[in-house]
């Protein structure tokens, strides 16, 4: 992947990220978040993480953001708050962001292991093939393409099968929670 594309997608992700924060209208910020997630998915793909990339688009950009937009529409929050942004929190937030970035930059400055380029970190298909046990993965590796989804699935069910069940339990708890918290009653008064 030529480097110019990386800069393009990085720029998309970051600029739309800022867009989320700056946008007056919650709908605008939701949409800019969607664009930011697509940029991010592209970055994932540039890192040969095709499964995660598609997952990002499907789950995050698709399901989560749609849920956000749905809620925003449901509650029809007024477009513009009208009040000027409170300067104290603005300065505070900015300060935090700048400080954090400086700290990350300083750490990265000293991070020698991070200086290797993506190009000279090629995937060695034959090494993974020799190790792989499933023959579907073996023959796909033989043709030189990375069976990303299959490897991902294999690792999930080989190393962390139990955690999958727990995540299932978590989703169950989440949905039960949502139901409990938003059951509509006949009369809605609050003490």
């Amino acid at each position: 992947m030529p480097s110019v594309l990386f800069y393009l997608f990085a720029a998309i992700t970051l600029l739309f990220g800022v867009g989320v924060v700056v946008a007056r209208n919650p709908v605008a910020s939701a949409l800019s978040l969607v664009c930011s997630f697509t940029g991010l998915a592209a970055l994932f793909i540039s890192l040969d993480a095709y499964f995660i990339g598609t997952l990002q688009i499907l789950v995050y950009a698709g399901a989560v953001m749609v849920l956000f937009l749905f809620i925003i529409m449901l509650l029809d929050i007024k477009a513009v708050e009208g009040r000027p942004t409170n300067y104290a929190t603005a300065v505070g937030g900015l300060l935090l962001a700048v400080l954090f970035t400086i700290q990350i930059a300083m750490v990265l400055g000293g991070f020698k292991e991070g200086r290797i380029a993506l190009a000279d970190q090629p995937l060695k298909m034959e090494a993974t093939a020799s190790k792989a046990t499933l023959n579907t993965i073996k023959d796909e590796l033989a043709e030189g393409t990375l069976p990303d989804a299959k490897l991902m699935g294999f690792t999930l069910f080989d190393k962390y099968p139990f955690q999958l069940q727990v995540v299932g339990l978590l989703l169950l708890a989440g949905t039960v929670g949502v139901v409990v918290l938003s059951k509509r009653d006949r009369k809605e008064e609050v003490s």
Partner: protein
Amino acid sequence: MMSSFSIEIFLAVVGVLLIALDAFATELNRKVVPWAAIGATGLALILMLTRSADIPAWITPFYAMDSLAVFYKVFALVTTLIVLIIALEGDFITAYFSSSEGVKTRIGEFYALPLIVCSGMMWMASAKDLVALFVPLELVTVSFYVLVAFTRRSAMSLEAGVKYLILGALSTGVLVFGIAWVYGATGSLSFEGIAAAAVNPATNAVALMLGAALLLAGLGFKVGAAPFQIWIPDVYQGAPTPVTAFLSVGSKAAGFVVLTRAVQAFTVNGSHIGTQVANALLAAAALTILLGSLPAIFQTNVKRLMAYSSISHAGFMVLALACGATGTVAFYMGTYLPATLLGFLLLVVLRTQGVGDELKDLAGLSKRSPLLAFALAVAFASMAGLPLTAGFMGKLLVFMAAISKAHYGVVALAVIGAAAGFYYYFRPILTAYSPVEGESTKLQVSPVARVTIAVLIVGAVAVGVYPKLLQSVLK
């Protein structure tokens, strides 16, 4: 005869069944689900105490069964059992505030979710791997989002829910970012791998320190240690009392077991970042004790007072952790449980009889119910660390750990914190025992509550007088 792994699954399954039972069997008597939950937890506790040591081979890479895990599993079960009893005690208040139907609303989930949370905590206790840690941690956190905001018709509970939600999510973000950097620096997700990387000079120390800092920050939030304890007073006061009890004891204990494992990995002897992590924890401990105990002097609400008290206790435990005395952390947690749960149980029992949880509402309690007044005295004395109560035993061991590591400055601050404790812990006792004019109605205490109070009082005093009980469980 059952292995601890299968007990946890049994509990989770029961939790799910209870949710289903409550959802579908509409005409069921409302007392079935709570008692079923309490029965299941009790059974799980008995099974855990008589567990068989062997665990299935395939879970050994991410499932640790050392004495630390066993203690915290038993601890989680005991906490859940008592919290369920507290919830049962305050049942009609939770129901009244949960929806507009008032007392008749069916709140089966309020008893089912804690079972799931308890199994989540038990999994966290035996997590040997960052992924195995992250997933049950999130299960616990998300379930607590639901529980805190459960009584959504009370504005306080909603506000607490929102605050906990936003700050919880923020801390999860920081936690994952920390895990990412720790993985990046060490190349492995398991605690042994991290410990091995921390020792060999090849790993980039600065990156590992960044990862460690962010990881400790994430876990610090869950435990309520210094810079991240800002959420505790509001959420503990706003949430329904049984949930506050569960948060302040269960969630804090789970946080501490994970924090213990992480700190053990980072400060394994010979590790390049050992001193930095220990000193950072020391600073956090000192700050927590002070930020926990000094503002408590001005509290007039007993529930919020207990929130600040839980911060200061967390401070003592982080201090023990900073001195590498993991046994003392577990012991202190063991002494912290009876006092705090007793306190919250009293608040619920009083709340159901119309006594508010403001300090002035406690006036003349000794006349209205000598048992509750005595229980209050024992609970707050144990929190204050009065000798011959469990609290003192815990504080003494923490002091000895700190002094053996020659951290005299922090010991001095701990003394100031504990001294402030003598004031704000004794104020409710004095109010309860000070006479009040006029006729005061007698308070009724249900048999279940009476038994639990007795058990907790014995727990608080017995551990203070005969601590070998707790020590044998720790071994």
